[in-house]
Structures are given as structure tokens and as C-alpha cells.
């Protein structure tokens, strides 16, 4: 692991999320300073493309939509709003604002592009909202109330796979995807949701293992295997990998990746789904990989690269 680019965001307060777009050429960051910034980081550069103002509270997360829908970014904030931004001819503009939550919106996640333009939002009011673009600038809102009592902290979509025929699927006909997503919340639960025949979302699985708030969940990208994997991390310092070989998706088993000494804030899968990045409250980022015998092994400790940076800043601080 080597740092190839350092982007000075000029945010005036804590950064809470930083996400690259589909191609890895643009970086969106959001911060407690209420702004969302977009940088062009092509070829190691950093050009501020847009500074999006519109939130009235700290912005927690940003999420890029698939490029087939154009350049679209969703952001969510403590101000209870979700804003969907769109670039038109080089100008970023607010496209849609969702104000249906009663508390801080903590997480946004776009569904796989195959499903259409759907955004899941998790909020501290305990609800999860699903915003579906229905054309003509209209968005259909479905709200799952009380998905997680006292707050939902994270949402993550399952990759688009067809059950039963996970590897080979007949081409030509439109595959019958099963829409599923996972959420984690302050009730220490990881919940799996799928859509019922009547179009309602239902939590068909509750995964219990954490003993404190679930801070983040991440559904691993599909790598063509029939196994689904979900990573979840918690305030209790534990990271679990949930796997399911069952095509119906009901038999989940948990494996503890590691117990950290501090809260684990964030988990992220690599695009190829074989590496998990875990970031914790001790400002540490570790990378984990499943070995051939199924054990999760820490392959890198990124803190080394950045500790230098943080000590420098501490040093500067001491001088002042």
C-alpha cells in the first residue's frame, strides 16, 4: 500500500466520507463544514470541480450513482435531508431533495444499476427510505419505519445476482433480480431486507452477534461465486463476516474477523470483493484478506503510511 495522491480538501471541519466515482477519477468528500466537494483526481492531480452547498448540518456520507444515469451524487446529512446532485454540462446542481426523515440521515447507498436508480437512506429516526427514480424527475419514496430502533447507521445493497443461477444465466431475457439490502443500527442488529410480492420491504433476516451499535455494514460485490458475504462492524470493536451459501439466502453464519480495541467505524470491500478495509476509532486502517483455508488475515496496516502525517500535524500543533 502506497499513498499515490494526497488531496487537501480544504474542508473546514472533520471529513466524514470520501468516495471515488465509478471510474476512480473523481473524489467526493463531505464534512462537518456542511459542504460536499468534488475533486478531479485524474493522474494524481486534484482539481476542485464543485463545492456543493445546500446542507444545513454536517454531511455524513456521499454516494455516486452508476454513470449510466449520468453524473449523480447523493449526500445525506445531520440536517435530516438527502440531496441528490447532478452534473449537467459541467455544472453541479441540486436535482432532488428528500426531507422525509425526522432525524439525522446517516447513510446513503445506490442500488446496483441493474435495478434502476434507487437510493436507500438510513436515518437516526430508525427508518430506512428507498427513493426510486420513476422518470420525469419524479421520485417514488418508500419508507420502512422503525427498521432499527433509535437509529439506522448504515445501508448497503446486495449485488445484482439471480438466485439459483448465480454463475450462468441465460442471456437475452431480462434477468429476474432479487433486490436485497442490508442495514445496521443502534439496536445492535444487522437486518436483511427484501421486497415482498406486494412491493413492501420486509426484514427477512435479523443477524445478531454484535453487542453494541452496528456502525457499518457492507455487502461484498459478487465475484461469480454462489456465496454471499456481508461485513459488519460495531461500536463493540468487532467485525463480523456473514456468509451464506444457501441460494435462498436464509442461512447465514457469522465469523468474527477480529476484535479491535476501539470502535470500528467503517468497512469497505475492494471491487473484486476479496479484500476488506476496516477503519477504526484509533485512526487505523487495516486490510484483511481471506486465506485459502478460510481464515481472515490482516495483510496490511495502513496506519504506518499515515501515522507519519498525523505526527507531523501533532508536532505543528505543539509548536503553536
Amino acid at each position: 500500500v502506497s499513498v499515490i495522491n494526497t488531496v487537501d480538501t480544504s474542508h473546514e471541519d472533520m471529513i466524514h466520507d470520501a468516495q471515488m466515482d465509478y471510474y476512480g477519477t473523481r473524489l467526493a468528500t463531505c464534512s462537518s463544514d456542511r459542504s460536499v466537494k468534488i475533486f478531479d483526481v485524474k493522474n494524481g492531480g486534484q482539481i476542485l470541480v464543485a463545492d456543493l452547498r445546500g446542507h444545513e448540518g454536517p454531511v455524513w456520507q456521499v454516494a455516486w450513482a452508476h454513470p449510466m444515469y449520468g453524473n449523480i451524487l447523493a449526500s445525506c446529512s445531520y440536517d435530516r435531508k438527502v440531496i441528490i446532485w447532478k452534473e449537467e454540462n459541467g455544472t453541479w446542481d441540486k436535482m432532488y431533495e428528500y426531507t422525509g426523515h425526522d432525524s439525522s440521515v446517516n447513510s446513503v447507498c445506490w442500488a446496483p444499476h441493474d435495478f434502476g436508480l434507487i437510493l436507500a437512506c438510513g436515518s437516526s429516526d430508525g427508518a430506512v427510505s428507498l427513493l426510486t427514480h420513476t422518470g420525469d424527475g419524479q421520485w417514488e419514496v418508500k419508507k420502512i419505519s422503525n427498521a432499527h430502533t433509535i437509529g439506522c447507521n448504515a445501508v448497503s445493497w446486495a449485488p445484482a445476482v439471480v438466485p439459483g443461477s448465480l454463475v450462468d444465466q441465460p442471456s437475452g431475457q431480462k434477468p429476474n433480480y432479487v433486490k436485497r439490502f442490508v442495514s445496521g443500527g443502534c439496536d445492535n442488529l444487522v437486518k436483511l431486507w427484501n421486497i415482498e410480492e406486494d412491493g413492501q420491504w420486509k426484514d427477512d433476516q435479523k443477524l445478531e452477534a454484535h453487542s453494541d451499535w452496528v456502525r457499518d455494514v457492507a455487502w461484498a460485490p459478487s465475484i461469480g461465486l454462489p456465496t454471499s458475504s456481508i461485513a459488519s462492524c460495531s461500536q463493540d470493536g468487532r467485525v463480523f463476516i456473514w456468509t451464506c451459501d444457501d441460494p435462498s439466502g436464509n442461512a447465514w453464519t457469522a465469523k468474527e474477523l477480529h476484535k479491535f480495541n476501539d470502535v470500528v467505524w467503517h468497512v469497505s470491500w475492494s471491487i473484486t470483493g476479496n479484500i476488506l478495509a476496516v477503519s477504526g476509532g484509533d485512526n487505523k486502517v487495516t486490510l484483511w484478506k481471506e486465506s485459502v483455508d478460510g481464515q481472515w488475515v490482516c495483510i496490511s496496516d495502513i496506519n504506518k503510511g499515515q501515522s507519519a502525517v498525523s505526527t507531523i500535524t501533532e508536532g505543528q500543533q505543539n509548536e503553536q
Partner: protein
Amino acid sequence: MKLKEIERTANQAWSPASHHPIFLATGTSAQQLDASFSTNAALEIFELDFGDPSLDMKLRGSLPTHNRFHKLIWGGFGMGSDGSSGVIVSGGDNGAVTLYSATKVLAGGKETIIGQNEKHSGPVRALDFNPFQNNLLATGANDSEIYIWDLNNFSVPMTPGANSQPDFSINRVLRNKQVQSISSRVDKKKLKCYWQKLKLNSPFIYFSLNPNRMRCSGMEWHPEVATQLVLASEDDRMPVIQMWDLRFATSPLKVLENHTKGILSICWSQADPELLLSSAKDNKILCWNPNTGEVIYELPTSNQWCFDVQWCPRSPVVLSAAAFDGRISIYSVMGGNLVAQQLSQADKISSSFNNLDPFGTGQPLPPLQVPQHVAQTTVVQPLKKPPKWIRQPVGACFAFGGKLITFDNPKAAPQQAQQLFPRQVFISQVTTETQFLQRSNELQAVLQSSDFINYCQSKIRTAQSEFERSVWNFLKKVNFEQDARSKFLNLLGYSKEEVKKKISSCLGHSLKNKDQETDTSDLEEKLQDLPDSTAGGDASTSSADFFDHIPENRPKFEIPIAADTDGLIGQALLIGSFEEAVELCLSDGRFADAIILAVAGGEGLLRKTQQKYFINQKSKITSLLSSIVTHSWREIVQSCDLGNWKEALAALLTYAKAEEFSTLCDTLGSRLEVEGDGTQRVQACLCYICSGNVEKLVQCWVKNHESSLPLALEDLVEKVMMLQKSMEVQQGTEVPIKGSVLAEKLTQYASLLAAQGSLAVAMSYLPANTNESSVLQLRDRLFHSQGEAVLGLQPPPFPFAQVQVDKGPHVAPSAPVTGQPTEVQRPTPKPFQQAPHQPGFTPLVPAQPSVQPSLPPVFSPPASAAAPPPSPSFVPLSSAAPSGAAGTAANVYSRVGMLPSYPKHPTSSPGTVPSSGPVVPGSPLRSPSYQATNPLPPPSQPGFHPPVPQGLPSTPTSTPVLQHLYSYPAGAGYTQGPLGMPSLSFTSTTAPPPPPPTGPRDGWNDPPNVHGMLRRKKLPENYTAPAPITAPVMSFPAEPQPLHSQVPSAKEVVFAPPGAPKEASMQLEKYRPQSQLPAEKIERKAIPSEHLFLKTTFDKMVQCCYLAAGDPQTKRKLDDATKRLENLYDKLREHTLSPNILGGLHEIAHCIECRNYQQALSIHTQVVSSSNFSEISAFMPVLKVVMTVANKLNV
């Protein structure tokens, strides 16, 4: 938001933070009686289960007690090791401190009390655990005595202040609530703090604060700053919370005032020091930010006093409040909506009565009407300030190409300015497969350098297994060496030389003998004789024998004609009947004879004989002989024993013809694959290598090797690429990659490379001729992720069906989002195709050749239009212009060369078209923002073509101006060169602004386009206002001035007056106030042609002055003059000036033309003295100023 409720009048204690699940212990309160006047007391434990949506909490353990409770706390002593739930400590009457085992209470077991002591006298109201050493307990009671207990030895307490202190290992502060003021015997005004340092085994240090006449109801240590604490006053006259620092113990640091009555309880969140909870007798529960003194949350509470509030240590959003109304309520501070819970509560109350017929009236009761509590049904807001625990400080997530985006936030002390830290995001490259990458790089290098042989050689050297080595050997030979086939033979263990040697060693002996007996020529002779002598030759089966025996048989010659076989053969031969002779030989088993005869008997016979021979003869070698003789290689390949595949392959290598060679190899290979055992299946690969069949090789390899692991895949790809290259070398052309398996593997390989960050390399492996969506997607992604690195290539088609997502009508127009200036310049390539203005120009040019196309619409008075046409486009337009001007100036500048030609060929439309070129850099800048903000289809295009006739009437009037304008460069101003250039360039930049409005405006005036007008009317007001403003304002000063002014001043003059903001972000606010001004101006008619002379003259004079003026003061004067002269022009347009003023002005203008400023000034004085002051006051004074300046500067 209320989460749970317990119907108890009780003291409460949360389970420790480390305890899971979350419990709340309640002990019947000693201070009050409940409604039933029950004297029972109990210690109960409830579980906080968020999975249950109801308001109830599950009772997990209950213990009846003798005493009621004054204070309850729950400590983590003994927790962790054996699943223990810690210790609950209660303070009761009579100085009793009781320890309960929480575990046992939960289990419902006996011996729940693990310790009791009545050292105190009076009720024990203060209890606290040492947060660092959970075996240390401090207690305080009415007797003003404070004890510190060690739970490991509960019998004897320690008294702070005494000399014999046990060794406290406290690294910071003993976080005690050393209290209290309730008893009259304790000094209410003093608060004592004790602590002791670990190293210095010193006695307790005693501190005393003197909160002025304050009755202290609560005290809390700062969770992070060791010397700070807060005190709450229960005095109704002074309901404040004071924040103290022991370092400045004379007065409080801060006083938090908001409660209207005395404060009963406070609690400081351990999770976020900026959250301090307080409850007071005014029925309020407030949450403070003690650092700012701001109330950031107010709990919607009941009408009862809440005597105790506590944060839940484990779940920081949760707090509990015990009230005198007999309830303990659990709240969340994050807000939410309670409707669902409200309903369930109503149901519960309803059903608690017997709804059916409780009073025997024969009628069921109607459902209970539960009054809707306003505070609960409305949406509860979360904390005003985002709490610390929700602010994610660190993150890491992956992006395409194995990149990892990380950020962290260095922990800072709360008081320190956050800006000190650079807010950085790191983009790192994650490479997990270093070996894979290294090998891939090697391969890449080889592929580029074409140094294949060495590569193979090194691979052979390092090969781990025999098979691996042979594979590489094959690859190497086949392909990159001459005479490949014989090399293959060598590889298979059949070297020509060696075989020859072997044969000769086998034959050697007899040959030597022969040499000794006869010389070679002799032998030849004999051989030549052979055909003749065959019939008589002894039947010998082996050739060796045959040779040996010939000489011996020589002397005898006899033709047998007996009736035995020999005889018959002889007879048959004699009559020339070879066939029968052969037949005879064969039936007699004399094959050699038969064959020799057959040779003589002709081709057909020979073949037949051979066949028969092979049918009859079943020795090991025959099938080989048979195949070789009959050239039926297929047979070898198809029927040979697979154990002999090497031999078969060798035979193929030796004999097979080039054209059928590869098919035969393939056949052999597939046989090996299908029929062979384990190792043979693998070795089929060798066959495929020989045949150069890449696809088959891959298939076979994939079948027999694990290939999903990166290194295995690398193994495969190395081979495949080598084979591929060799085929290319052989055939001299590029061999396209075909086959789905190969494509799949290469895609896999490419995506692996991509995941490791080798984007360019990955791209080179992607199969080109496929429509596999995964490949297309990967290519698209690879291409774009490389940014400019691959600019030379055509971007691949977008592999997804593009979905157009429009902006909905929901968006409030009042929230404009502005891009950064950098962004403004970016979009130039795209808008070129989209800008609708450009085509719109061309029809205009021929119609009014000498007029710059953009101008007429500006002057055209929209006679009918009352309201200015709303053109949303304009908001960003104008804002973009100034910021973009600097950026585009360079572009424009370079194109200036085209402009001078403009006046020279005014009528040639081809000539004028390029002159509108400079317009382009401006218009793209606008069009994007135009489309971004306008939810309606851009009206400019439909509106633009019809206007031509409309614009015509107005253009004649403006023509002179323009001609003047454009002829001017030829004059003095232009010859100045450096000055003239920028001014020219400026014309081109200022010219663009008018076009955008022309579209909409003309559409507005144009009768056919009424629909568009109506539609536009519906637009929100704030769009309409700014739209038209800039058009006239900007264009007006733009006409005359830019020619004379220097670039910087021109910017000021031209752009600044209309208030065009220099920063894009200022737009709306800036424009709105000006909306009235342009609303008038938009209706302006053109200046009557007879008076146009005035305008040009005056403007010219101002310009000349401007150029000549050295000091900024004069320039400012001139700027002002320019503005004020507008008043004059307005009046000219409106024909409101009296004839004598007009006459005077004309005279003045003529004098100015002649530079006779003295004369002009005197006329001026006359006019002023003879006219109505109000009519001329707006412009005459300034005209004088300008003339004076002009006179002084002598321009």
C-alpha cells in the same frame, strides 16, 4: 423521542457501559410514596430491548428489600471474567450501604446481598464508583462524612483526610460526587474535592470552592478535562448551572442559565463532553452544550418534576428520567416519530379496561379516546448539535483500480482550532499480489521487447516441475526456433542422432562383420542383383538377416517347380502372375517374399499386399509401420494406446504434413483429455502447444489447473501469451484472440491487474473482438479511469444503456448551486454541439450584414412585452461571464485577428461567419448553466429563427452606431496597437452576452411563439427577476466603450456597473435588488437616429478622456459620468427633452467634435441657465465635468 417507560417511583441506575445487554436497575424511592401508599420496596432490573417496539421494558430480575432507596448505582466490579453483571450499590436509611450482586438478582438466586455496612449515620444519598478502579466506592451521607470503600475488603472504609491512606492508583481524578447539601449539618456552601497523586504518596489534597450561597443539587466532573466540574443549584431564585475550574477556583468559568426553577439533577454525557443534561422544577429537561452555554435540546416531557436524569453509559443517545409522577421514561435524543408507539399505547389503555361491558350496562364501552399529546405526535427534533458519537472520524473505502481512499481526523483537544489540521484525503494504491504483479510486469516487458526465447529460457530454468519445464520447452521450441519439429522430437526423447546411434549400435555388430567379409561395392552389386534373385532368396523375415544371407545364397540358383508352395510360386512367377504368387506367399506366411513380389507387381498390388500384411501381422511395430506406410496418421492419433502418446506425437512431428499437422495434434490432445488418466490429461496441453491452438490450450489448462488464484492465472496467461506471440511470429500477422474461455480468462486477468492498479496493462489484455458485456464494461472503466493517459485512443462506447435522469419539479429554485470558477472553463468541449445560439446567428447575418448580429435584439423595443421576459438562463450566464472573461480572454485574444477584417467585408457572409467565432467561447459558457437551471425545454431555439423579420425594423437605427463602432478601430484608438488589441478582444467578449437573451426575448415578442411565453410565465418569480437585467445593462455600456478603454478599465466599466458579480456565487442576491432598474430599461427604445450623434460624441469624449486620464480619481469621475450620461440617453429615447435643450446639446456635441471645449462649455452654461433645472439636473452637470476634464487633458 420517548422509547420506553417503567411505571415505578424509583431511583435508577444504568448497567455499566461495558455490560451487554443494557439493563436499568430501579430501587423503590425512599423520598416519595406512590399513589397506593405501598410500603413495599424492591430492587428490580429491566432490560432495554430495542427490538421490541412497545414502550414496555422487560423485567429481568426482582428482589424485594426491606429498605427503600435513596441512591442506587451500578458498578462494573467483578465484571468481565465470568459473565458477572457487576455490583449494584444502594444507599438507604440509617447509613446503610448495601451491595447486591447484579448477577444473582438477575438469576433470581439467593444471597444476592454481598455486603452491607452501616457506618454512616442518616440516609446515604451520595454514591460513586471510581471510574478507573471499579473496586473503589465513595459514599456520602448526612453526617458530612465521606468514606471510600474497597469492595475487595468492604468491612473498613477509608476516610479521606486521614493520614494513613492506602495506595490509590488513580492516574487522573477520582471522579466522585462528594456531596452534599441536603442535610442541614453539612456546610451547604462548600464543596470539597479530593484527589491524590499516584506517585507522591501524599495525603488528600483538599480543595474548596465557594459557590456563592448556592444550594448544590448536583455535581459532575468534566468527562475529559480533569480540573473542571459543574454544579447545579436547586435554588428557585438562582436556577443555574455553574461550570468551575479548580485552577481558577474563585469564580465559575461559565454559568448556564435557562431553567426557570431550581435544578434537581444534572448528568454529563461520557460519550460527548458537549452534552450536559439537566432537569429542573420547571418540568423541563434540557441538554446543554456547556462550552457554549447553549441549550441544544429540550425533551418533550410530562408535567411532572423529574428528580433524576441519567445518560445511558452504553448507548449514548439514550437517557432515562425518573419523575415524581411515578414513571421512569427512557428517551432518545436523536428525534424521531412516535406515531406507531402512540397507537400501541392507546390500545393498551383501552384494553386494560374491560371493553366489553365492565359496568353491566349491556353495552360495550366505546374505544377509549386517548387525548393526543401534541408533544409526542409531532416529530421530535434531534439534538441541535450533532453529537460526537455520530461523527465518523475515520474512513477507508476502495475504489476502482485497487485504490484505497482513506482519511482520518487527528484527535484534537476540544478547545483547539480545528482548522489547524489539513483536511486531507489520501488515495493509496493497494497491491496485494506483488509476485503476480512482478511476473506480469516481466511478461509485459517481454511482450514489448519480443525477447521471447530468453524469457522461455528463464522460465525453463526456474520451472518447478517436470511438466512445467516441458511446457516451456515446447513453447520455446515451437515457436521461436527454426526447425521446430525436430526440436519437438528431441523434447519427446527422439533425437535423430540418438536414434541413429541406437540403431547403429544395434546393427553395428553385423555390419562390421559384413564389412570384413565383403566390401561395400560388393554389397551394392548384390543388392542390384536382388530383384532377380528374390524368388530364390531364402525366406527371411528380418532385413538384417536378409542382408546377411544374400551372399551365402548366391551360388545356388534353382527354380523350384514342385507342387509345394515354392513350386507353385515359382510357376506363378514364371507365367507372370504376380498376384497369385503374392497370394501364395501370404498364405504361406512368407510376407517378405510377398512384399518383394508385390513391389515388382506394381503399385496396386503392393498396397493390397501391405494391407494384407498388416491385417495378418500383429506385432507391436506393425501399426506404426502400417500408418507410416499408408500415411494414415489419423489412425495413429485415433487408435494409438494413450500410453504411447509421445510416440504418436513424434510420428506426427516426423511425418505429418503441415496442413494437417495441427488438426492431428488437436485430435491427439483431445483424446488425451477425454480418455487419458490424470497426467495425460494435463499433457494434452503439449499437443495443443504443438498445434498452436491457444483456445484449446486454455480450455485444457483451465480444466486441469486451479486458475482462479492470481498466480495460477498468471501461469496460464504467460503461456498463452507466448503461444499467441509465437503464432504471430510464424504467421507474420496479428492473431486475434478467439474463444470464450480464453476471453474469459483474459478478462479475469485484466480485472485482476486492474485491481492491482495496472490499468494500462490490464487494458492491453482485454480481448478486442468480443461483445461480452463484462469485457466492454471493464474496458470502458479502464479507459476512463486512466484519464488523459490514453487520450490518443478513441473512448470505447459506453457499455450501458444511458438513462436520462431529469431534475424533478421539487427543487426549490431558491437554492442555486454554484460551481467553482475552475469548473466554468471545463465544459467547453461539450456545449459546442449543444449551444443553440450559434446556428441561430447565421440566418441573421445575411439579413443585416453590416450589423453585428447580436445587437439588434438588444435595441429592439419589445413594444408589447410588459413584463421582462424571464430567462432563467441569465442568472448563471452573467455570473459566468465575468469570471470566465479572464479565462476566455486569451482565447478571444488569439482570434482577434479575424476581427479587423470585419469592417472591410461587411457584406460577405462567409467573412462574417468567422467573425462570430469569438462569440463561441462565450456562449458555451452560458448554455450549460442555462440548461441546468431551466426545467423547461430551452426556448431559445424555437424562438430564435422567427425573430429575423422582427428584428429588422429596429436594426436600421442601430446600424450607424455599429458602423461607427466598427469603423472606429481604424481610427486613432486602433492604431495604438497594444491598447487596441485588448479593446478589440473585449468587444468580442462583451458581444456574446446579448445572444442568449435574444433567443428568449425574440421568442417572447414573436407572435407564433406565444406558447413559449405562457409557459415561461409560470416560472417562479425569482427566476424572472434576474433574467433580463444583465442583458441591457451589460450591453449598453459595452457598445461604445470597449473600443477605447483599456482592458482592466473596460472590465470595470462594462461589467461593474450592471453589478455583474465577479464571483459566481454571489449571483442571486446581487441581482434581485436591481430587478427594477432593468425592468424599465428593457422597454427602452433605441435612441432616435437624429440624436444618436449626441451619444456617440459624448461617449467618445468620455472614452478619450479615459484613455488619457492618468490618475484614478479622474477615472472614477469618468466612470460616474458614464453612468450619469445614461440618464441623458434615456431621456433621448423617451423624447422627453425640450427642443431647446436638444438644440443646445447638439451644439455642444458639434463643439466637442471640433474639440472646442470652451465653446461647448459656454453653450452648456446657456442651456443650463435657460432650462428647467429638474429636466437637466441628471446629466448636464456631469456633461460639464467631462468637458472640463476633456479640456484639461486636451483630448
